[in-house]
């Protein structure tokens, strides 16, 4: 029997507003149509009405879970146009802030997976471990989400011995917890039953659609910007690119957990090798006319900023693209052929962020 089922735009199983029109045959999804645009706010237009410093505040508020990457990539574009050199210390500190955000973001998504497969004790356990990262953010940057770590020509915070040893001691606490929880996600029967072979994205489709981040890496495509086009201190602090071949929800879950482990290593390495130097080189840089493109690896994948200036205080044009923008279309490949109950699990596995996709 064929039925049509709508999910969304506001639905208990979805984290964010999106409207799925699903054609069902029995229990299996035959076709899916997606309608978006429910949270389009015109932020790009707003960014062109604000000056370079105001945009630092605005870009941080485009998205919450990858809030650090937006001002990070934006300031790199400004620095490129203005020819500002960033100190080595500031670059290392940028990596610390970015990787801390990545751990927290991945763990949030993974706990949502546990929630969606109905394993609530595992969700609580993951969120409880993630709370360590939230504590670190609150202690070092004074906020649990928007860290406001970046500024033009450097960073707004510094680490002394006390703060550094605080982060390291909390990471020491987190590390065994991650090992323990990871083992459940990798081997537990309930988790595996709902993730293995579900929502498969074949490698050729991943390449064709240009998907990014853990969604691409779960299908064996290396699009990690930190590795492909290093920025900040990633030429010295090399990330291990985590690739899986399965292309299913399970593969993407594995990629995220392995990246959590790798990010913990990167934070440690950055703090232990923190170079000396100033954190900011220019207080009020002049931004001449020019254009620049910069990229960074946000928790969900590649984030790109295009900035064009005309010598005034405001950008002439500013455009950015977030990872979910590319990963979205992959849902049309992933969802058909699966059970209706798996739609929310598959949707979650691309770690969707509609707020920044639609801007």
């Amino acid at each position, binding site marked *: 029997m064929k039925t049509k089922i709508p999910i969304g735009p506001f639905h208990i199983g979805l984290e964010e507003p999106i409207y799925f029109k699903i054609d069902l045959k029995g229990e299996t999804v035959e076709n899916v149509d997606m309608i978006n645009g429910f*949270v389009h*706010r015109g932020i790009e237009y707003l960014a062109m009405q604000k000056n370079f410093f105001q945009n630092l505040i605005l870009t941080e508020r485009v998205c919450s879970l990858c809030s650090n990457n937006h001002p990070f990539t934006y300031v790199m574009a400004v620095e490129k146009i203005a020819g500002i050199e960033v100190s080595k210390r500031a670059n290392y500190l940028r990596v610390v802030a970015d990787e801390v955000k990545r751990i927290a973001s991945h763990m949030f998504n993974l706990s949502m997976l546990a929630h969606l497969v109905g394993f609530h004790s595992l969700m609580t356990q993951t969120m409880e471990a993630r709370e360590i990262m939230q504590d670190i953010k609150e202690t070092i940057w004074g906020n649990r989400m928007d860290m406001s770590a970046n500024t033009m020509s450097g960073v707004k915070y510094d680490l002394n011995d006390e703060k550094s040893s605080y982060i390291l001691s909390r990471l020491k606490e987190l590390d065994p917890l991650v090992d323990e929880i990871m083992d459940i996600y990798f081997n537990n029967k309930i988790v595996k039953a709902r993730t293995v072979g579900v929502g498969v994205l074949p490698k050729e489709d991943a390449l064709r*659609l240009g998907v990014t981040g853990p969604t691409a890496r779960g299908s064996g495509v290396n699009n990690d910007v930190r590795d492909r*086009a*290093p920025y900040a201190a990633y030429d010295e602090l090399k990330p291990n690119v985590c690739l899986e071949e399965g292309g299913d929800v399970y593969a993407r879950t594995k990629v995220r957990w392995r990246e959590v482990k790798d990010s913990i290593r990167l934070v440690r390495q950055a703090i232990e090798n923190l170079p000396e130097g100033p954190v900011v080189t220019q207080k009020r840089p002049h931004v001449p006319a020019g254009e620049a493109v910069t990229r960074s690896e946000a928790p969900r994948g590649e984030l790109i900023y295009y900035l064009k200036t005309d010598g005034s205080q405001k950008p002439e044009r500013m455009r950015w693209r977030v990872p979910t923008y590319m990963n979205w279309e992959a849902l049309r490949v992933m969802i058909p052929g699966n059970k209706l109950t798996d739609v929310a699990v598959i949707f979650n596995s691309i770690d969707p962020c509609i707020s920044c996709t639609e801007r």
Partner: protein
Amino acid sequence: MIETLKRKVKAEIKERLDAGSYDLREEADEKGNIQLWIKLHNRKDILHIAQLVKDFGGRCVIISAYKKGDHHFLVYHLDIEGMLLNVEVELLDNKIDSITPILDSANWTEREFKEMFGIELIGHPNPARLFLDESIAEGVLGEYMPLSQAMNGAATCCMWEKIESERETHEN
């Protein structure tokens, strides 16, 4: 490695485009990343560039549009194994050929500049609206529009009022 790739891509561009129909400059940063900036004089040539990127196994990252004077400019950001190609095209007649039939990854971004800037898109397989409702005219990025209207009332009481009134008419 990236140097070899750059040489190969540059040689291909030289072969596929007419001499004098484009300007090319290179940009390198201290980490060894290379970006090529290409300015096309003929907007049709974007199809050749798209085919070239596809042949190299690349993808379309995004397309930035902006308006200067009375016409639009597009900047295509294309990626080949971590190297970026930024291709600028000036649209004197506000029309552009779609590269989506060649590069699937350009699908959304072409639809977005169509609805935000009102640029005419030729040959897109699915030129439907991306974010904006059909009731909103194309090319809205240049004008003021209240949030409730842009979101079709989805975040305000407007939507519920609309549903309520529709239900009442339906029941009557």
